[in-house]
């Protein structure tokens, strides 16, 4: 845990806000492969940023690793990142999954989709559904989603702003909120449980949760609940389902810059991508790698190619818009 800043040890210092135990295996694999020692500092995005602020140019941080493009955009805006130079990385990751000035890249994807109980939702209702449809009155009291303070929702709204404009999104949001079956509470898993228990008919959550629940890692009750649910991928007729990312960037004052880039390249390697897919149930960035069977059985889908860096751009407006719409 302790960081030694100036000793000539071959190492890389990673500031991460991901809290998946599976990541520890990734780090170990990297060390095994390259001989580079991995030091971890974990915390929330905001806390890490405060830390970087106070560390200033003396910061020993090399890599920033997190979930959600909104977080990455905030760091990029704050000037804490530097451009990635590696051509390998640029070849592997399409433009829409890279940040401004190539200051960060996606290493995995997740979609924010609609989970529903087929016993209480008819085929016609759910067929070709879009996020925009969720504001319609036939969904009154049937929708659950977590709080607006969560970054995933903020990014979803940001993408709506990017595609529909702020005014339209605000109108949508007000109606959407009026369809909530309950005041937002709990996390994504909680929303899925609510649908399984009949409290609501549809929930908006990230794709990987169903993988975790079905795998049994969360206990028997969750596994049973998850098996009742189906996924509907929104907006298949137009732009595609909202996709967000896990990603990383090189910190501005990185003392081990080469190692930092090596680490990011590693995350995009076949074995790391496979590991991510199999353990955190995310979708890979490398197109030819298959997602985990539990996820794959829900089918392929069209992914929204809105540039994820837009999420960061519209994040402040999204937050205020959600407040105005009464989305707690």
């Amino acid at each position, binding site marked *: 845990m302790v960081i030694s800043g100036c000793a000539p040890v071959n190492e890389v210092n990673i500031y991460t806000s991901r809290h998946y135990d599976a990541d520890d295996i990734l780090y170990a694999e990297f060390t095994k492969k390259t001989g580079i020692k991995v030091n971890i*500092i*974990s915390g929330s995005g905001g806390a890490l940023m405060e830390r970087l602020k*106070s560390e200033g140019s003396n910061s020993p941080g090399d890599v920033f690793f997190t979930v959600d493009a909104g977080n990455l955009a905030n760091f990029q805006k704050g000037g804490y990142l530097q451009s990635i130079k590696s051509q390998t990385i640029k070849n592997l990751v399409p433009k829409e999954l890279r940040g401004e000035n190539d200051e960060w890249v996606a290493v995995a994807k997740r979609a924010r989709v609609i989970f529903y109980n087929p016993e209480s939702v008819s085929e016609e209702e759910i067929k070709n559904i879009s996020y925009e449809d969720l504001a319609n009155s036939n969904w009154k009291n049937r929708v659950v989603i977590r709080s607006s303070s969560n970054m995933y929702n903020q990014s979803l709204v940001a993408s709506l702003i990017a595609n529909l404009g702020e005014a339209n999104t605000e109108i949508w949001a007000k109606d959407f909120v009026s369809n909530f079956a309950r005041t*937002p*509470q709990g996390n994504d898993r909680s929303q899925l449980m609510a649908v399984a228990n009949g409290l609501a008919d549809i929930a908006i959550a990230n794709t990987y949760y169903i993988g975790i629940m079905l795998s049994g890692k969360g206990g028997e009750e969750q596994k049973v609940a998850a098996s009742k649910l189906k996924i509907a991928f929104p907006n298949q007729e137009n732009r595609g389902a909202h996709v967000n990312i896990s990603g990383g960037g090189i910190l501005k004052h990185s003392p081990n810059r080469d190692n930092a880039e090596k680490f990011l390249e590693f995350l995009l390697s076949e074995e790391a991508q496979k590991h991510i897919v199999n353990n955190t149930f995310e979708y890979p960035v490398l197109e030819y790698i298959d997602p985990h069977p539990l996820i794959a059985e829900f089918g392929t889908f069209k992914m929204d190619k809105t540039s994820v860096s837009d999420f960061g751009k519209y994040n402040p407006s999204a937050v205020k818009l959600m407040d105005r719409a009464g989305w707690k």
Partner: protein
Amino acid sequence: MKKLFKLSFWEIFAASITALFAIPILLILLSLFSGFNDNFAHIYDVVLYEYSLNSFYLVIGVSILVIFIGVITAWLVTNYDFIGKKIFVWALILPLAIPPYILAYVFTEIFDYSGTANNLLRSLNLVSEDYALPNIRTLTGAIIVFSFTLYPYVYLITRVALMSILKPMLDSARVLGLSKLQTFFKVTLPIIRPAILAGTALVAMETLSDFGAVQHFALPTFTTGIFRTWLGMYDLTTAMQLASILLFVICIVLYFERYQRSKQRYSAAGVKSEKLISTKLKGIYSYLAALFCFLPIFFGFVVPVIELITWATAIDNTFNNDFISSSFNTLFLAFLAALITSGIALILNFNARIHAKRSSEEMNNFISMGYAVPGLILAIGITQLLTYIDYILFNTGLIITGSLIGLIFAYVIKSYALSNNVIQSNYKQVSTDIDDSARTLGSNKRKLLFDIHLPLLKTGLLTSFLLVVSEVVKELPATLILRPFNFDTLAVNVYLLASEERMYEAAFPALFIILIGLIPIYFLSKMIDHSRTIDE
């Protein structure tokens, strides 16, 4: 002739500590001069009203409920004899061992759609399959949770006040011509009213300070707003401005509480509890009284503890590495904070004693106000302080330790009042004549402190140590923010697990916290059960 300007070491130390304690708050108030940006305008327009309204209703609702529960139970156990009364007297303070956020987590799990309560009702066929008890994650639910865990403050203070009203006192009033009702309003009420109000004010401050419970209930209040603005919007300045508003409100409540406490002028000098004559309740009344006392204890302590034990035993892997390292961290922090706090209280009280100047006492009183400041706000102020210090120190690797120091600093500020109270009352029992003798026998001040006072204050110091430990173990918001990375405490574990709806895994650490929370219960129960001995 001019006197030489001479301050002793002790006075300088006391003054420095006082100044140091004030800094975090000052930094926060300083934010009011930084100008209000977009985010603040947004908050002001859209959510500030809601934060204020929720906080307001929460405090009002909780205050009413705790007065109802606390005063009636205190009245019952002090003036009447009924089934189980001897147990109820001390058992009524048990809910204090459970911090509000843990009770919130437990109640949520129990009263959720697929929780114990609904399952029970359904299995007993009392309700249909679709039925569910009203959602507990609401303002009403929060009021109930806070009331069950905080009423003991009002109970305790009211009980002590009631104990000072002896029957002979009331008899005199009757003989002087007052009816029973008049006696209540002219004798009893004036004596217990300040106590009730002081206790309620304390409850109000605890409620306004809470972060864990209201966040879990998704109730937008000041604390959640501050947290969200800082860590969600990355805007520390606006968060501090919000914090200033909350501080202002708390200040008002604090002064109200102190004012009420100063009005408590009853002399409870050596009342043997047997001398409190109580009326025996018979038959149905006895059962009713017992029931009324039983219910708060049942919901505030028995049910949560049983549920937690059930959950903890339902899964394996409780004694994992996480738990061990968190326990170690928790106890390490708690012991360190307890030592430092007790040490400072000792020195400051020593200083006040030997200099007997108004200023020494006032410094002590000023620092004691730290308990009223919400942990969340302290943490923000200290973060800002650390940022300034770090800037000066560069990155000398002290960043990690700096954070720990900041956390301990927060703990010390928060628990100083507790420690001070205990050590101060212990000190009062040591006659100043002893000081005089020691000094004429040649002791300088240092020798007086270490050779004479220290051994005589052993009880007070130990009590102070234990009480601070239990305070620190329960603390959540400041720890969440100030802890160094990869350094979790038990409270943090419970918070993180509960946020992910993993209550079963949170049960064991939660029980550990409650266990340590029983320590102050032990001391408090002595206060209300036994008499204070009359000096021979």
